[in-house]
């Protein structure tokens, strides 16, 4: 198990593989982001995106799924306080295959809670062509060794 003490600034990880399907893009959009370019092939073709694209928040959801599958099982994390500087850089389309590259940027000890700390992790989500589609800096809570 990886605790706060074990995390090193500069540490880099590459993980995840998420196949984006048309059905899932539409399902997410129907529930949470019902804009025409996320919902409807025809309307999306006529939009500035030229075809169906995933909701940016759906890309965020796919990102956290990859984090849950690859990193959480071996890390003593306890959720997240949020994130900074999220950028949606390229459209995510049906058929895309996404992966993540993460770099630890900073470790912040908690003054009020000595049992944990915050780790700033910069992540880039890329597609099968190596284009970065989304980037963000997450504030992840790591527990310290007891």
């Amino acid at each position: 198990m990886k605790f706060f003490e074990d995390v090193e600034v500069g540490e880099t990880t590459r993980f995840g593989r998420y196949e984006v399907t048309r059905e899932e893009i539409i399902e997410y959009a129907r529930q949470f982001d019902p804009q025409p370019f996320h919902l409807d092939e025809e309307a999306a073709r006529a939009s500035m995106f030229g075809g169906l694209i995933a909701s940016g928040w759906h890309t965020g959801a796919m990102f956290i799924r990859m984090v849950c599958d690859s990193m959480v099982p071996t890390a003593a994390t306890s959720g997240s306080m949020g994130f900074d500087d999220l950028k949606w850089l390229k459209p995510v389309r049906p058929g895309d295959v996404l992966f993540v590259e993460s770099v630890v940027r900073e470790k912040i000890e908690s003054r009020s809670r000595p049992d944990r700390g915050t780790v700033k992790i910069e992540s880039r989500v890329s597609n099968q062509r190596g284009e970065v589609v989304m980037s963000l800096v997450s504030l992840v809570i790591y527990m310290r060794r007891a």
Partner: protein
Amino acid sequence: MKYWEDFKIGEATDLGSCAITEEETLAFARKYDPQPFHTDPEAARQSIFGGLIASGWYTCALMMRLSVEAARREDAAATGSPGLDSCRWLKPVRPGDVLAGRTEVLETWPSKTRPIGFVRRRVEMVNQRGEVAVAIMGITMYERRPGAAA
């Protein structure tokens, strides 16, 4: 139609509200954020949260739905978002909570290259006790009023 020109700094809008159900909280978490304190009520009781809490990404998804519905009500010519400055999950969100969305325009500026403009806004999701549970600073893009773009 509400275009970029129609957004004024300081303008505040209520986005409406939504109820958090255990069923929907679990369904989202099982698909996208399967951490025990989001997916397993028993494990959640043992965690530092003391009970099931919603995925932060789920609360953002609900914020998005309220925003889309509000934009539709005012017939805004929204064309997506390049990103967010920050997002903070300040309070746990639990089944039974009711979250109300509100937003305020902080800054507006036109695109130099396209017939669109940008709006920087604060968006908050506030629970039934008046606590801000989610706070976002984000940017949205809107079409320019036809004929108005220089």
